[in-house]
C-alpha cells in the first residue's frame, strides 16, 4: 500500500485539500476498478445491489456525499459494510462518494 502515499502527500502540500480530493489519473483508474470489483462483490459489478444495497445514482439520490464518504471510510456498525480505511484515504473515499452520486464511471480498460 506504499505507492498511493507519496503522490497524495505531494498533492496535499502543493495544492491543499481540494486538489487532494481529486486523485491522480492512474489512481482514479484503480479506484474505479476497486469499486466495480471489490465493492461489487456485495453491491454488484453494475452496482445494482446484492447483499449490500444498490449504489446507482437513482438509489443514492437523497444521500449526502459526506455521509456516503464516511460510510465508505469508517464502515457501518451493525451491518456487513466494512470500513475501507486500510485501503483508501479519506479524500479517496470522498471522491468515490462524489462519483457514485453522479453515476459511477465504467472501468477504464
Amino acid at each position: 500500500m506504499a505507492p498511493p502515499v507519496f503522490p497524495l502527500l505531494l498533492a496535499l502540500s502543493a495544492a491543499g485539500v481540494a486538489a487532494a480530493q481529486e486523485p491522480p489519473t492512474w489512481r482514479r483508474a484503480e479506484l474505479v476498478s476497486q469499486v466495480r470489483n471489490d465493492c461489487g462483490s456485495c453491491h454488484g459489478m453494475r452496482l445494482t445491489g446484492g447483499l449490500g444495497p444498490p449504489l446507482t445514482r437513482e438509489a443514492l439520490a437523497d444521500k449526502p456525499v459526506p455521509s456516503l464518504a464516511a460510510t465508505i471510510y469508517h464502515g457501518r456498525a451493525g451491518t456487513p459494510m466494512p470500513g475501507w480505511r486500510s485501503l483508501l484515504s479519506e479524500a479517496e473515499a470522498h471522491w468515490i462518494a462524489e462519483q457514485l452520486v453522479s453515476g459511477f464511471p465504467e472501468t477504464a480498460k
Partner: protein
Amino acid sequence: MRRRELLAWLGLSPAALLLGGHAGANANAAAKPIGTGDLGVVVERARGALALVNTSTRSVLAEIGGLGDLSHASVVFSRDGAVAYVFGRDGGLSKVNLLTRQIEARVMQAGNSIGGAISADGTLVAAQNYTPGGIKVFDAGTLAQLADIPARDERGGLSRVVGLADLPGRRFIFSLFDAGQIWIADLSDSGNPQITKLVDAGRQPYDALLTSDGRYYIAGLFGEDGLALVDLWDESPRIRRILSGYGRGEQPLPVFKMPHLRGWAVAGRHAYLPAIGRHEVLVVDTASWLEVDRIPVAGQPVFVMARPDGRQVWVNFAVPDYDRVQVIDTVSRRVVRSLSPGKAVLHMEFTPRSEAVWISARDANHVVVIDTLNFRVLAELDIDAPSGVFFTSRATRMGL
C-alpha cells in the same frame, strides 16, 4: 503449425473450409461424439460469457456469450453433464448446451439473483433471489416457471435468500439473510410446494453448505459468532448453534468480501470453515460439532475447499490478500504451501479425482491449472476476467 500450413497439409484451401462451414462442424460432431465427464465452464464475468473448457486437454474449446451480467454468476449441471444452467446477477437464468454450444432457453426471472440449485432427479432448477427475495422453481427442460416461493417472514417483509442447496426427494433448503431463518421447500408436487420453516437460525446467515451425504446443512452467520447446523436425518430437523463465540469477543477485522461456504469443506471427519473477521480457518469435528483446531491463514478466507479426496484444503482470500492461495494439509492441519497464482483469485475447482486444481485470477486474466501433489503449474489459460470455475462432475454431487 499455423492455420494455413495445417490446411495445406490437409489438402484443403481456406475457401473449402469456409464453404464447409457449420455443416462440416456438425458432421464432425456426429462422427465423433464426445463425453461430458471432462468438460467444464469458466465464467467470464465482465463479458457475460462462459469459456467452455476441457479438463483433460486443459484447453478452452469455445466461448458462449449473451448471458447478461455474470458478476457473481454460478452454474449447476444436468445429470448427463451436457447442460449448464447459468444464474446471472441480473436475474437471467440460461440453459446452455455444452455439446452444441448453444443457449437452449433463457428467462429473466428476477431483478437480482445470487445462484441456484438442481433437484436430485434433474427435473427442477431453483434460483435464489435477492430481489424479489425468495426462490423460484423452473422446469429443467423448458425453464417454464413451476413455483414462486417468496421469502416472506412473519413481519411481512421479503428476505434475501442465500445458501440454496438441493436435498433428496425434490426438496430444496435455503437461508433467509434478513429474517434469520432456514426453510425447506418440498416440491414433490411442484405446483403446490410444502414449506417447513426453521426460525431463529441466528443473525444474518450469509451462505451455507450441505455435506456431501446430504445429512448436515451448515449456515454461516455474519451477525453473530457461530454457525447454524441442521441435521436433516432427524425426523423433525431443528437448528442447532455450533461454534458459538469463536471470535472470543475480540474486535473482528473488517470483512472485505463475504466468505462462500458452498463447496467441499469436509475432509475426513473434520469440517474446515472460514472464520468471519478473523484470519483463521476453524476446524470442527463432525461427530461432536466441537471446535478441535483453528489454523492461522494469510487473510480473510473466502473459499475453504477440501480436495475431493480430503487430503488437502485450499483457501483463498478477500482483498487485499487475494493474490494468494494457501494449502492446508489435513493430517498435520497446518498450512504447507502458499501460492501466488495471480491477482484477484476468485475461485478454485478440483478435477474429480483430485489431481489438479483450476484457479481463476480475475485481474491476471488467466486460469492456472496446478498439480495438487507437487504444486507445479500444468497450464495457464488466457480467459478474460475469470470468476467461477465449474466442472460437470458437480452433476453427480448433492449440494452442488
